[in-house]
């Protein structure tokens, strides 16, 4: 099984459009995993039917049972996250501030602080409109275990691929270089960067490449909206060459990207003749 992760560093470069195009190109050869867990958009193109829904728990939150509380203030003193407040004389945990470290519960002399499992989000196992398996999720508001949810989505996708004898897992990652991206990269076989010729795009590409390099995963790059700035485009191409990143494709600014998204279909479904050729070439280079 081969896991292909699509990331970009910078947001809005066309990551999800690429993921959807590749998915609809190879159809039942791939399980699709949407790992952009706090802004998941792939379902808007692949219109999955949810087959199985599962609550995902990770980490804990502290809850103070005030009946036994002696107001010793130790919990409030020790909490490094200022997550304990006193409301009308009663000690209370502010859920949004609580990191779930458990310290307050360990030191409470009357053992009245409970650690309750935290629901981080929901994970869905679905079937795309063309019948292939897809795993996606919804992160709870402000949840701080997005990396764990990414790992869960990937694990489910890999398991489905193994069970059904499917050769590829296509992962749509999130922007940035933090925990969800690190979780997306872990265990991947190939990374596809989608970038654009802007100084921001180049700066973000360099940072996400530095991260990818730590994992020693081979990578390729699609330059989208390539005709926006020739100079920066050249800088990106030079960077790819120096770093040994495969040049997968150079795509000029094309309103098909927006038209397809607006119609809720992939580029392949939008214009098979034109985009089928582009993405077949990309797919061949990846493999």
């Amino acid at each position, binding site marked *: 099984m081969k896991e292909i992760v699509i990331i970009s*560093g*910078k*947001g*809005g*470069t066309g990551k*999800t459009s690429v993921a959807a195009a590749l998915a609809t190109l190879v159809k039942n050869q791939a399980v699709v995993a949407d790992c952009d*867990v*706090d*802004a998941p*958009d792939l379902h*808007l193109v692949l219109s999955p039917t949810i087959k199985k829904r599962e609550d995902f728990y990770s980490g*804990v939150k502290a809850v103070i049972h005030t009946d036994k509380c002696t107001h010793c203030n130790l919990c409030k003193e020790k909490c*490094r996250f200022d997550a304990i407040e006193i409301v009308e004389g009663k000690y209370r945990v502010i859920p*949004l501030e609580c*990191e*779930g*470290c*458990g*310290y307050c519960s*360990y*030191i409470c002399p009357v053992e009245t602080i409970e*650690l309750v499992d935290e629901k981080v989000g929901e994970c869905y196992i679905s079937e795309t409109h063309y019948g292939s398996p897809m795993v996606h999720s919804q*992160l709870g*508001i*402000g*949840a*701080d275990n*997005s*990396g764990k949810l990414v790992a869960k989505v990937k694990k489910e996708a890999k398991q489905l691929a193994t069970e059904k004898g499917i050769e590829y897992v296509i992962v749509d990652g*999130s*922007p*940035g*270089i*933090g*925990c*969800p991206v*690190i979780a997306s990269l872990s265990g991947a076989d190939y990374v596809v960067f989608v970038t*654009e010729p*802007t*100084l*921001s*795009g180049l*700066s*973000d590409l360099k*940072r*996400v490449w*530095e*991260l990818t390099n*730590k994992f020693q995963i081979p990578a390729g790059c699609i330059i989208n*909206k390539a005709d*926006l*700035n020739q*100079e*920066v485009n050249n800088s990106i191409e030079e960077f790819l060459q120096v770093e040994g990143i495969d040049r997968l494709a150079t795509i000029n*600014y094309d*309103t098909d990207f*927006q038209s397809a*998204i*607006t119609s*809720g279909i992939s580029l392949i479904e939008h214009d098979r003749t034109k985009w089928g050729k582009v993405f077949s070439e990309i797919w061949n280079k990846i493999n």
Partner: protein
Amino acid sequence: MKIAIASGKGGTGKTTLSANLAHYAAQTKNITLVDLDVEEPNNNIFIQGNEIEKLDVFRPVPVWNKDACILCGKCTKWCKFSALLQLIDEILVLPELCHSCYACSELCPVNALPMQDWPLGVYNHLKEGNLDFFYSKLNIGVEQAVPLIAKTLKNIEELELDKELEIWDSPPGTSCSMLEVVKNADFVILVSEPTPFGLFDLTLAVESVRHINKPVGIVVNRYGIGNDEIFKYCEKEGLPIWATIPNKREIAVLYSKGELIYPHIPEFRAELDKILDNIEKIRGEQ
């Protein structure tokens, strides 16, 4: 007044708006611009200035003291983040997973886990005229952005700058790092685009911001692409649209070169004026 500029979807124009709004407003006002998208900060491409301060930012993490440790293993059971592992004859600390809660360090019966500073990223302070510009950059491989965001905001607060307006460029998404920014702001501007992706991610962002009871204004960027659904949604939800920025190739080209937009495109500047008028209005109401 502290205004967070956020979005659900990445690449909708948060940084374009933050840098231009701050730079434009600083022509007549005392302004602070803070880039809190610490994973991929880009305001520094658009804003220059004289360097005032550059600091490495640290976070305390435990360090194992082999000589003191009795290998009781309690620390590994306390740690909810799996940042401590007990091997045959050693305790392994994984600083990138540590949340700096101090539980292991302070509860260790033999004080074998003293806390020591671990680098998170770099904090920068620049100044150009009336504009104080701050940005922090997360070190590659550091998983958690929240501690760097919190430290950056704390450093700035301690400077006690007398500012009419603070503009905070937030990370994309709706997870902990975005919440860390918006929860400390007085008002949130959500930037989106009129596509189904932009709309879906906007609904998630609105839900998050409402969850913590922050007032919201919407800026629709790249107006002209996609459809009108975002406007219908905003009307239905009673969300005020503060500005509508047209989809123009010239804007994208200026952005690609790292140039500010408003000095070149009057239409864009007019939208910034609308936003500043709205900010004045809510300042008056407060």
